[in-house]
């Protein structure tokens, strides 16, 4: 890794890159970073982005497993709705889905009598829950399709052997089918997690305060165009790097035989 950077041309490119970074750091306007108000906002924004990412990936995967199973081996009355759900989620922009959930469905609630006085009202007005719901459904739609392929790709012999051992169906699913399917999707899942990270800034459009929303606020308050965007790009690239490393570690732990 380090040695591959020490080739002369790469050293030259590295020097150019460092020079560009230095120029941006010196001539760019970074004084807003010293403002404690913005520092607190940035920390909160990054925290919210990470919470959104982890929570929606977890909820989405939990939904994707039954969706994939229904499409792979379910009866038609389960497979059809599951397939329709995946097509709708995958066929429309996430931004529109978020608008539909937050503004569309959110605008129907005030028409229901008695709801405004109930305990559920603060939750129904909070964009945060709509963001979690929208992003989770999006993960479920995309990963449902991935899990369908993974469930189908587990060799029949494995399931037949488990059945011959007299395992009940639920145990087969828990011990043989699901682990092997998950192992197959692990490399795909890393890429999908990066895609999900890149989808999270859309929640700023429905007033959730993630790191993107913080940068937008800095831009509109200080009238600085580029620097907050550059900070954003660096933050997202850093998180992407961490995701890639985590999944590489995960994949290294799963024993694999290459035929």
């Amino acid at each position, binding site marked *: 890794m380090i040695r591959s950077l020490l080739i002369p*041309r*790469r050293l030259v*490119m590295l020097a150019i890159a460092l020079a560009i970074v230095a120029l941006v750091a010196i001539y760019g306007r970074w004084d807003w970073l010293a403002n404690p108000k913005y520092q607190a906002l940035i920390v909160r924004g990054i925290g919210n982005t990470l919470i959104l990412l982890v929570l929606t990936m977890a909820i989405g995967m939990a939904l994707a497993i039954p969706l994939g199973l229904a499409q792979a081996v379910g009866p038609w009355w389960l497979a059809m709705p599951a397939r329709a759900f995946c*097509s*709708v989620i*995958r*066929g*429309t*922009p*996430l*931004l*529109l*889905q978020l*608008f*539909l959930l937050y*503004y*569309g*469905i*959110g*605008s*129907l609630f005030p028409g229901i009598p008695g709801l405004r006085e109930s305990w559920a009202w603060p939750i129904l007005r909070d964009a945060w829950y709509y963001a979690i719901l929208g992003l989770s459904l999006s993960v479920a739609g995309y990963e449902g399709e991935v899990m369908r392929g993974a469930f189908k790709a587990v060799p029949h012999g494995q399931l037949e052997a488990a059945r011959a051992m007299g395992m009940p169906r639920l145990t087969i699913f828990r011990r043989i089918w699901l682990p092997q399917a998950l192992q197959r999707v692990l490399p795909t899942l890393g890429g999908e997690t*990066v895609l999900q*990270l*890149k*989808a*999270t*800034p*859309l929640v700023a*459009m429905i007033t959730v305060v993630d790191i*993107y929303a913080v940068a937008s606020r800095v831009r509109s308050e200080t009238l600085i*165009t*580029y620097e907050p*965007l*550059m900070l*954003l*790009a660096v933050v*997202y*690239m850093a998180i*992407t*790097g961490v995701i890639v490393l985590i999944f590489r570690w995960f994949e290294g732990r799963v024993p694999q035989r290459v035929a």
Partner: protein
Amino acid sequence: MSGALLASTLDLLALNPPGWGATLLWGLWHSVLIAAGAFALGLGIGILGAYGKLYGGPVTKDLLAIYTTVVRAVPELILILILYFAVTDAANQLLVALGREKMQISGVVAGVLVLGVVQGAYATEVLRGAILAVPSGQIEAARAMGMSPFLLARRVTLPLMLALALPGLANLWLIATKDTALLAVVGFAELTQATRQAASTTKAFFTFYAAAGVLYLGVSILSSVLFAWAERRARRGQRPVSG
């Protein structure tokens, strides 16, 4: 009650001015136009990028690796903002340097440029994989026949890789149509922005967002059918893959 609701919904979506149907369709047309332009530009960048990554010199390879890695690691929304301001800024500074007036770059052109650069990074990877999957014997045979590199690409590599690249390209096209929605953030009058206008003017949020969803879904279903047909056509005369 439900009859009246249906009638008022149809009134809202009517094509003639009190209804907003025409605005939505106009937005859809802009979305498809931008997506098609960006896809074409991305394909052009992708072909050059794939050839550069496979056959280029070491510096070209490194630069292309940086391009594809950075573009794929940063959210499209942020790339669109950065590129949008950078492109308009650069164009205006060029115009000022040439002694002309500053101008407003048209939304469609900026959208195509910005999304095209994003699509180019993904297309580079898709096409690189497809070119690698072309049997090397075919390319070596063509080279042995004395074909020039350009003729070889046109007659052998590109037609053979098309069938392999089409599923990936279909995905990219669907991403392009959906990414046009992000241009609403910089205020382009594409489908999502038109929908947002219609919804906030009439307060019929649910109706309009659902209608736009149906339009996007229609585009994506139609494109899937067309790409399946194109793939069958590109595979003419090839042995079907077993399994």
